[in-house]
Every structure is written in structure tokens, then in C-alpha cells.
């Protein structure tokens, strides 16, 4: 059985190497957040090996002509892939053709060319003051994005409402970073505890050692990670409440605009959000978070003391701008502010992303929550 994780970055694969395989499709799962192909390969000695090949989500493959029935068991294929770093027979797909050379889908190369401007290959520049524990780590960090290319259906676009207080609609993020706050030259202001937890998580991330972080376990990533994700967002709005609905992992943030009746609310990864309008700016305060948060892929930690303040505005072109300030005295010495923006994107196709569907090989569930 493969050590497949339902939800992960592609750091587990060695992008400097490629492996060529010819074999027979044993299984094809057109699932989110990654598609999966099992290929049976017969080696020179006649032994049959099973290779597990992953690629991006259907949302990324669909524009390249992929469908749920593009492959079926028994198809003879030739695959080129970046192998897994851990030696398990598997990898991430580079190209896939039928054995007669016909490309699967309408493009020969997969994944689509990386957006070099936003490539994760940019180093973090030494920041002004960095915790001494992290001095050796900093040069190994990459701040870049993992934003997916926008996938749009060809149709007449729905124009945004001219009302600056109407946020309802579908958006696509302009930034989505694997490390907060997301600009080179700036890191979160870790205290001793924050630096220790981050160092441990980031070293494992860089070494592609799987950690039982929330997304790997199909748990929600929390408010800050959701607001920093590379997938569509649907905003719904009434005079009493604004909801941010995230396609990735079906996360929902509910921002109450009116006082709510007292109710026992369990701490959550999304926290409890209250907002009010000051002019055309929506001010949002969020508390009530769970402990054990991973605010980004590297694993910047958050605790139940996390406090998120936001100012959300709608810009003239219909895009959304969110100025976020986070504070968490458990792990940080002071507040950090950063900006995220979303373009108006009514043509983005909404996928049902069910991490749990692809979770059969994940480690046993730990009900107590993931390791801090």
C-alpha cells in the first residue's frame, strides 16, 4: 500500500529527477485534491510492480481535456514522472501518453508551466531580526506561492455589483503563499516557543518527511490558511451575515454583522468572526480558535490565543482586498500584518473537493488532534 496522503504539497517528489514507465493502468481515480493513477509495470525479470502516480486536481486537468473516463483499467500507457523522494514506487506526473504516443488530454506536458514570477524557487531574504534558532533555516525557506492557474469557463462574464458594500460573488485569489506573511525579507516575529515549533515543522517540510498536519488528515486548515489558499471563494451576504465559502476542503467562515444570542461555541479552526461596516470598509475581529493550528504549509503555528483583525474592502474593479493582522502571544512577540486580494471571477468552475474521498491510505486518524 502506498503512503499516499490525501492532501499535501508536491515537496515529496524529487523535481530534479525523472523516471520513464511503460505499463498498464490498474486504477484511475479522478478525485480531489489530487488525481491518482495506479500503473502495473513488468520489469526485466518478469516481476510486476505497482506505481502510484499523482497529479493535480480535476480543476487543473479539465482545461487540458481530462475527464473522469479519460483512462480506464487495462489502458496501456507511457508515463514520465518525478519520483518520490522516499523511495516508494510512485511520483508526480510530468507527461502521460497512450502506448501509441497519443497524449492523454490535449497537452503533452503536465503540469502546466509554472508561473515563474510566483515560483516557490525564490529564497527568503534574511529578515531584519530573526530568532537565533532560525538562522540556519532561513536560507532554506522559499516564500513563493502555490496558487493554481485560474480555470474559467468560456461564457459571458457576470459583472460585479457597483455597490461597494456588496461583496457577494465568486472570487479567485491573487496571492497564496506557502509561508506567511508571504513577502521576501519578512518573517513572523517568533518568540522562543514559536521558533522551536516552526523550526521542527519546517525542517520536516523541507526534508519531505510527512507530518500529520491538519490538511494531511483532511481537517480544516483554519481561517488564516483559508484566506491564503489558491482556489476559488464564494461570498454570500445578507444584512445579518457574510459567509466566505472556500472551494478547497469545503471550509466556511461566517462573519456575523449583528450580535448573536449567547451559545456554547466550541473553539474551531475558523474561529468566531464579528464584523461591522465603517464607511465602505468591513472590519472583522476573529477569536475562538482551536489550539494546534498550522497557518501555512511550512507549519507556522497558532494557538487558542490567536486574534485575527481584518479590514475588507471592495475595490473599484470589483476585486476584494483584505488587510489581515494576526496576533498570538503563545508563539509571536507582536502583531504581523499582510494583505491578500481576490479578483472578481464569476467564471471559475466550482469543484466539490472532498479530501476524505482520497484518504484511504492516510495514517490512522488521531482524534486528539495533530501533533503540534
Amino acid at each position, binding site marked *: 500500500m502506498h503512503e499516499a496522503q490525501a492532501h499535501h504539497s508536491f515537496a515529496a517528489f524529487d523535481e530534479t529527477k525523472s523516471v520513464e514507465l511503460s505499463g498498464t493502468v490498474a486504477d484511475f481515480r479522478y478525485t480531489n485534491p489530487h488525481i491518482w493513477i495506479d500503473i502495473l509495470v513488468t520489469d526485466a525479470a518478469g516481476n510486476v510492480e505497482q506505481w502510484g502516480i499523482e497529479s493535480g486536481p480535476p480543476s487543473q486537468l*479539465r482545461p487540458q481535456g481530462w*475527464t*473522469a473516463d479519460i483512462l480506464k483499467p487495462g489502458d496501456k500507457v507511457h508515463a514520465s514522472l518525478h519520483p518520490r523522494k522516499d523511495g516508494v514506487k510512485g511520483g508526480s506526473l510530468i507527461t502521460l501518453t497512450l502506448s501509441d504516443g497519443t497524449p492523454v488530454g490535449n497537452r503533452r506536458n503536465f503540469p502546466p508551466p509554472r508561473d515563474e514570477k510566483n515560483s516557490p524557487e525564490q529564497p527568503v531574504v534574511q529578515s531584519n531580526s530573526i530568532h537565533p534558532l532560525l538562522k540556519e533555516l532561513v536560507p532554506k525557506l522559499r516564500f513563493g506561492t502555490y496558487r493554481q492557474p485560474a480555470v*474559467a*469557463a468560456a*461564457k*459571458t462574464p*457576470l*459583472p*460585479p*455589483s*457597483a*455597490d461597494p*458594500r*456588496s461583496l*457577494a*460573488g*465568486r472570487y479567485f485569489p491573487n496571492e497564496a503563499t506557502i509561508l506567511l506573511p508571504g513577502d521576501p525579507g519578512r518573517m513572523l516575529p517568533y518568540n522562543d516557543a514559536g521558533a522551536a515549533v516552526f523550526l521542527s515543522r519546517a525542517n520536516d517540510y523541507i526534508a519531505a518527511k510527512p507530518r500529520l498536519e491538519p490538511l494531511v488528515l*483532511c*481537517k*480544516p486548515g483554519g481561517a488564516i490558511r483559508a484566506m491564503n489558499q489558491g482556489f476559488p471563494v*464564494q461570498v*454570500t*451576504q*445578507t*444584512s*445579518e451575515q457574510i*459567509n466566505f*465559502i472556500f472551494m478547497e*476542503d*469545503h*471550509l*466556511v467562515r*461566517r462573519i456575523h454583522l449583528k450580535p*448573536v*444570542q449567547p*451559545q456554547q*461555541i*466550541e473553539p*474551531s*479552526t*475558523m474561529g*468566531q468572526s464579528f464584523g461591522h461596516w465603517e464607511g465602505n470598509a468591513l472590519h472583522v475581529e476573529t477569536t475562538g480558535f482551536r489550539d494546534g493550528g498550522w497557518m501555512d504549509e511550512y507549519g507556522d503555528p497558532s494557538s487558542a490565543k490567536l486574534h485575527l483583525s481584518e479590514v475588507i474592502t471592495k475595490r473599484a474593479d*470589483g476585486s476584494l482586498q483584505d488587510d489581515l493582522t494576526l496576533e498570538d502571544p503563545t508563539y509571536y512577540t507582536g502583531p504581523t500584518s499582510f494583505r491578500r486580494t481576490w479578483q*472578481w471571477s*464569476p*467564471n471559475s*468552475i*466550482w*469543484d*466539490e473537493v*472532498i479530501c*476524505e474521498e482520497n*484518504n*484511504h491510505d*492516510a495514517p*490512522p*486518524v488521531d*482524534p486528539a*488532534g495533530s501533533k503540534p
Partner: protein
Amino acid sequence: MSLLHASPRRVRKAPWPAIILLSACGQGGNVPAIDHTSPTDLSGVWLAEGSNDVLTSIDGSSPPFTVDAARLYQQHRLAQQAGDTRWDSTQRCIPPGVPRIMLIQKPLEIAQDSNLVSMTFQYQRLVRFIYLNDAYPENPDASFMGTSRGHWEGPVLVVDSSNFKGGTVLDSTGIPHGAKLRLTERIQRRDPDTLSVKMTITDEETFMHPWQAQVALKRQHGVQVQEDVCVERERIHP
């Protein structure tokens, strides 16, 4: 509203003169004022009343199973009596799909504008979008929650859903279905605190003829939808 922003697309107008739909103009909606006096205002937090995750036909008869489907349903019943519910994929955190999600004893929240009725369920944080026009593209891929399109017939929101993935059941008793499942729901606010959902279930691979079921949803005053993490409450077994 400026003409500059008027979409060339024709938008199905609600014949019911409700304040909440006055902003229907084929653009990103203006902020809909909640008008609890309007029968086409479905917004709020709701909970299925007494359904206990069981789909019950309107006339009390059992679903008109085909021979094969009756056999499969019987297998599910017998297995459940023996304590084996592996046929229930929700125990592996696979979404229950529609209509089952409407029957589950966890609150759901509805928000609506002229383009979209959204249902966000506490259960597994699942989301169901009901598209009222062509403002958003349709997803060609099958999904557990299916693809839902809706339109207003007077005070009734008529929702037609299809393009479902297989592998789920219609309720906790194990009523099976196939990929050709179609569901038509007539959702109507009977009074400010009650939504009636009348369903017509069609699936030629499972049922001899379409049949009808219903569920009532009750408004949950002062209740907030909370975060639910399926993998923390279910035992995952492949």
C-alpha cells in the same frame, strides 16, 4: 443600478413580488435585505424536523424498488441489524449527498441572492449551491452533492438536481441509488419558521417509477452553525 453593469443575459425573474429579489438584475447581487415577512426569503438557520436521517415517502408506502435494488436494500438492512454498516460511506467521511444531507440532524444555513441559493451544512461543512441562472458556470463532473439548478414558481423554489456520484445511499436505512438519480425538490416557506421540502425521486436503475418524499425544516432561532470535522468523529476504515 447603472446600465453599464447590466448583463446581457436574461435572468429568470421571480413572479412573486418579494423585496429580497428586487435586486435581480444579472450582476453580482446587491446586499439582499432580510425580509422575514417575504415567503421567498429562505435565509436563516434550519434543522430537519423529526426525520432522523430517514427518507419517508409521502404516502407511507415503501420505495418502488426494482428487484435488484430491493435485494440490495434488504442486504443493507440485514447487515445493519447485524451491526455491520460498512455500506454506509458516510462512516468513511464520504459526503451523504442529496437528499440525505437534507434529513440529517445538524443545522443548515441558507443565504440567497438573485443568482444563487447557497446551503451551508454544519455536517462535515458541506456546501450545496443552487444556481438560479447562468451567472456561474456548471461543473461537468459528477459530485456527491450533485448539480442543482433552481427557479421560482410563485412562492416555491423548484430545484432540479442530477450529476451525482455513486457510492452513497439516500438515508441511514440504506436506500440505494445509481448515477442516474434525479431529484426535484419543491421548497416552500409554509410560515416564517417552517420550510417544507417535497421531493420527487427518479432513478430508473433503482426505482420502478418516480416516488415522493418530504421533510420539514424548522427555523433555529439564535443558533449558529458550528465547525464539524468528520475525521474526528468517525472511524475511518477502508
